[in-house]
């Protein structure tokens, strides 16, 4: 019992308790205001609990179910904040307001946290399925819309398929090593490399499906388009953060600098995601689909950070996740607040009609494009530092080239917003809560971009003793290097 519970982060039971309370309350009498209050209070409490280590943690992840290390604390904070942002976006939104909506969001958040903190395959899979199942309900929320049905069916089939693939991979991994520890199996096992290779490939395929990395991305634009805006934000931000965190944990002990099969597959998927995502977004006029493409490209950039172990690798990924979460949540909140059709034509002339909203949207897009003074600029620079430091030349070239494609479509929206307004029609305004959320995210994006020191120091101090980078970071530079003098 002690081994089972040791390491259980207190935020998980808090979220579970919140979900039970919400269920009870809505069974007694339905009220959207009370539902969101309970949900937000739960998130806040869970957030606060990240800094109370109630149960002592032995520090060795083998044989444990959860690893409440610095990486988990950081990722959990991001997950909790971004799902709070999602809830504020959904508040009083036409068609989404209901108790169950917040219930499903809380459940999804719980799944995401479990995934980020799990050290055990079974726990990881439980978290993943909790997230997937609650997402299914959220995607199909507008159940009278044909696009919502299409999106939900697509998600159901592909999520099931990828879960099966993932589970098969986990089973093979167990068959090889006899351990349920959630980590890439070592290739130097007694059985030869075939079994662990197949296991890693299957697990990666399953994870890439959920993470919507190219070439497993085709479902994402359709699902994002069909889902309500807060749910699209939840898929793009919260779920991706959790999956990336799990992916990073899966490869914690592996040496990704060695050119073996797993590293090569990750590198190929990273390059494909950078180009595929950006090219996909380039052709879109629907902003939700465009942001789907952009989120795929950002997964590619994050994979570059993951593939660059060393003093900068994981910290740069952490900073990038924060920058990405703020800007993407902000962009979706702005989409929700605009109350116009989510395509470029609807946003034309926004700087004349709603200057404050247009300015906030421009800040988010500038951050996603990686232009100063927004935080995205520093975050991308940080990732490039990691890449240069690990000498990932091909990946860096891909990052530069695909970023230029990205610039084009982000700026295209800014340009459309600056054009003269077609006709002034009074659109409904978003809720004050949503407006406040947009303002806060815009201010964070700019302030963090001007003064990134705090964020860097936070991530550093959280990840400094991280078990996740213990072996890879100590490895000396590759010997085949011609670039520097002894």
């Amino acid at each position, binding site marked *: 019992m002690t081994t089972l519970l040791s390491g259980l982060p207190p935020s998980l039971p808090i979220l579970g308790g919140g979900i039970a309370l919400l269920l009870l309350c809505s069974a007694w009498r339905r009220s959207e205001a009370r539902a969101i209050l309970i949900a937000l209070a739960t998130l806040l409490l869970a957030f606060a609990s990240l800094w109370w280590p109630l149960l002592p943690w032995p520090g060795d992840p083998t044989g444990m179910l959860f690893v409440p290390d610095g990486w988990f604390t950081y990722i959990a904070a991001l997950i909790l904040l971004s799902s709070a942002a999602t809830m504020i976006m959904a508040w009083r939104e036409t068609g989404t307001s209901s108790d169950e909506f917040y219930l499903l969001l809380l459940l999804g958040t719980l799944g995401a946290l479990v995934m980020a903190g799990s050290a055990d395959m079974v726990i990881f899979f439980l978290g993943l399925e909790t997230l997937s199942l609650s997402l299914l309900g959220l995607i199909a929320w507008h159940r009278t819309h044909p696009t919502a049905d299409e999106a939900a069916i697509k998600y159901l089939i592909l999520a099931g398929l990828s879960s099966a693939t993932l589970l098969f991979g986990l089973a093979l991994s167990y068959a090889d090593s006899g351990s349920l520890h959630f980590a890439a199996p070592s290739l130097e096992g007694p059985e030869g490399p075939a079994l662990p290779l197949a296991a890693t490939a299957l697990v990666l395929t399953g994870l890439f499906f959920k993470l919507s990395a190219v070439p497993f991305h085709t479902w994402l634009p359709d699902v994002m388009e069909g889902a309500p805006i807060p749910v699209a934000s939840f898929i793009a931000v919260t779920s991706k953060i959790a999956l990336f965190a799990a992916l990073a944990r899966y490869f914690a002990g592996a040496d990704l600098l060695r050119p073996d099969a797993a590293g090569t597959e990750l590198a190929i998927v990273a390059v494909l995601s950078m180009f595929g995502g950006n090219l996909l977004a380039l052709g879109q006029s629907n902003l939700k689909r465009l942001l789907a493409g952009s989120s795929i490209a950002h997964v590619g950039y994050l994979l570059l950070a993951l593939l660059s172990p060393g003093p900068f690798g994981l910290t740069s990924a952490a900073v990038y996740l924060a920058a990405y979460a703020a800007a993407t949540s902000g962009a979706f909140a702005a989409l929700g607040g605009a109350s116009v059709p989510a395509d470029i034509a609807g946003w034309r002339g926004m700087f004349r009609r709603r200057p404050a909203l247009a300015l906030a949207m421009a800040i988010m897009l500038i951050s996603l494009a990686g232009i100063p003074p927004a935080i995205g600029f520093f975050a991308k*620079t940080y990732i490039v*530092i990691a890449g*240069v430091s690990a000498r990932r030349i091909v990946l860096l070239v891909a990052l530069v080239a695909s970023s*230029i494609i990205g*610039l084009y479509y982000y*700026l295209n929206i*800014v340009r459309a917003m600056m054009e003269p307004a077609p006709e002034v029609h009074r659109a409904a305004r978003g809720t004050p809560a949503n407006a406040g959320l947009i303002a806060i995210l815009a201010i964070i994006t700019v302030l963090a971009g001007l003064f990134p*020191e705090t964020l860097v120091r936070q991530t550093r101090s959280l990840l400094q003793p991280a078990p996740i980078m213990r072996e890879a970071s100590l490895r000396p530079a590759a010997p085949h290097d011609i*670039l520097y003098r002894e």
Partner: protein
Amino acid sequence: MIALPALILLPAAGGLAAWLSDRSRQASSLSWWVAITTILLQALLLLVITRTADWGHGPWLAHFSAPWIPALGIAARMDMDGLSLVMLWLTTLLSFPCVILSARDVGERPGLFNLLLLATIAGINGVFLATDLFLFFFFWELMLVPMYVLILQWGHEDRRRAAIKFFLFTQGSGLLMLVAILGLVILHQHATGIVTFDYFALADTPLMPTAAMVLMLGFFIAFAVKLPVVPLHVWLPDTHTQAPTAGSVLLAGILLKTGGYGLIRFVVLLFPEAATRFAPVALALGVAGILYGAWLSLAQDDMKRLIAYSSVSHLGFVLLGIFSGSPMGMRGAVVQMVAHGLSTGALFVIAGSLQDRLHTRDMRRMGGLWQALPHLSSVGLFFAIASLGLPGMGNFVGEFLTLLATWRVSPPMAILGTVGLVLSAVYSLTMVGRAFLGPPHAGQGTTHTPPPADFGPRQMTVLGLTMALLLVLGTYPQPVLDLSLPAPAHATPQPEGPHP
């Protein structure tokens, strides 16, 4: 010296004030006054900096340093030497025509216009001062966004394509420079174990020749896009042609000079050996730019396009001077940059005014303007002659010095460069002949429309001062020549004040 960051914060704050003052609707000229006051204050501040600078204690004149992101060895460090000072003065002086003369063609939303203009100027000032490579890159990128919006909002008919082309070219090459900067930082870390972006520390990094060459090329390409150097110039004619007058002046006058400044400060001084080995290629590119730009200028009917291609030609001399490897060539390049900034800036003002009055930039539809617009035409003649390098003007000094320095390295290059000078006389005089002299164009002389207004006292004052500066630069270039030799990268400036 705290005045250095003030040089960046002042225009930024002034821009915000101008923007806010525009929001109160009733007084639309208020924002212009705020902008002019800001630039006057900037000039005063620069004067104070010049007076209180640390003259006589080595080449570095002023220093400022504050921690910014210490976790990554990034500091808000700025240092000023004579080269920075010359460039800052050029920026400040050219800001006046940008603000004073563009009130007419901006029309609506002057507040936003002034905000963007002053934000660009703040970014440019930062580029000329930063000696932390991350800070430099921050400013380098920062000056692009407002410029992009400026072209997009107030540009001419094909502005969308021009603006995005400008942005993609400069930003794309900027990312290459970022990779080069970080490569240098990481190599420095491998050599010393310290992560730092400090210019002076990085200048001492021991580098293998191959690594130095690769990194140098990363920097070179970014600056070569900006300057521009010939195969990378394709964004420039479109952008210059489509930008509003103030945008063209800012682009041609100052923004291109950040490329030249970067080549001196971050290519030649940071990688001296690699730059020496690369010099033959750079000289050839410079000569190619001179001839190609001049040749295309001959074939243009669009006046702004002609001036844009002539910029490509004139800035080829800057490349020649920088890579000639001698102090004389370096000085010539700096004088050429200043002179080109003044004369081409003025020519863009004239072309913009003509478009404003005649609603065309096509020289086939101009002619005989001297009768209708005597002031404008005579000013046009003056700057066209200055730009072709008549002795007595700054351009002559710059071109002469660079060609002399090139002659010592490679006589054939110098001869080819001189051919470019001949061509520049041809296209400049052709432009004057087609636009200002000759018979009036059929469509405009016989007219029901009233004749277009000539330059008023405001324009004449501003352009007259520019003329005076060019003449002073041409007849007494010594102060600029003395200042313009850049400080070497390893002469670490004396820290002053409480900052380490």
